[in-house]
C-alpha cells in the first residue's frame, strides 16, 4: 500500500481532514512553535 491505512475519515466542518486519533492534527502547531523558539534561543546566545 502506498498510503497509511485509514479506516475512518475524520473531518473538520471546513473540509480539512483530521488525523485519526485526534491529537495529531494540532501537534503540528506545537512543533512549529518549538522550532521557532529553539531558533530564537540560538540567535540570542550566538549573536
Amino acid at each position, binding site marked *: 500500500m502506498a498510503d497509511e491505512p485509514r479506516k475512518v475519515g475524520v473531518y*473538520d466542518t471546513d473540509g480539512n481532514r483530521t488525523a485519526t*486519533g485526534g491529537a495529531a492534527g494540532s501537534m503540528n502547531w506545537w512543533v512549529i512553535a518549538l522550532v521557532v523558539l529553539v531558533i530564537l534561543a540560538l540567535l540570542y546566545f550566538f549573536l
Partner: protein
Amino acid sequence: MNKKTIVALYDDLSGAERALSELEAANLRQDFTMMGADSAKLGSSASLATENRLESWRHAADFGEDPNFDARDRRVSMLTGIGVTREDADVFAEGVRRGGVLLVGRVEESMCDSALAVMQRHGSVNIPGRAQGYREAGWSGYDAAAADYDSAQVAEERRRAAAASLRDVNTQGVNTQGANPAAGAPAATPTVTPAATPTGRVDVNRD
C-alpha cells in the same frame, strides 16, 4: 461545542449495522446516519423487520439535508457539504455505488475517539487502499451518471474486497483476532489461504 464529521465505509450492511448498534449502546446513535443501505441489501431476502430496522437506521440523525441525499447525484455533494474532502467523498460515493454502506456521523470532538474505535472494530474499509484498488482497475472518480451495481455485480465486488482484504492480512502479517473486515460477505474466493477461518471470514485487529 466543536463537532467533527466522521465517515466509514463498509462492504456490506451487517458491518455497518453492528457498528451502529454499538454506537447506540454508547449513546451516539443520534449523531449518525446511514447511506447506501438500499443498494447494499441487494441479493438478500430482506424481511419487513429488516426494512423497518433500516428505516430507523437511515433516519438516526438529522443532518438537515435533503432527505433524498442518497440519490446518485447527491452523494458527493452531501458528503462535501458536511466537511468530507472531495477526494474521500468520491471514494465513499463509489463504494456506495458498488453496494457498500456508509456510516456518517457528526459527533462532539470529545466523543470522536470513542466513535472511531467502534467504527473501526466492525470492519470499516481502508480508504486509501480502496481508492488505490479502484484506480488500479481504471477508476478515475465517482460518476453520478453511472448506474449503481446490480446484485450480481455487488456480490462480485464483495468477493473481490474480501480477497483483497485477505491479501493485505497475509502480506502485512496482521494478527487475525478481533474486527471483521468482510463480515457478511459471501464465502471467500479460491484465493483464500489456509489462514482464513472455515467461514471465509478473517478477524483483524489493527490496534
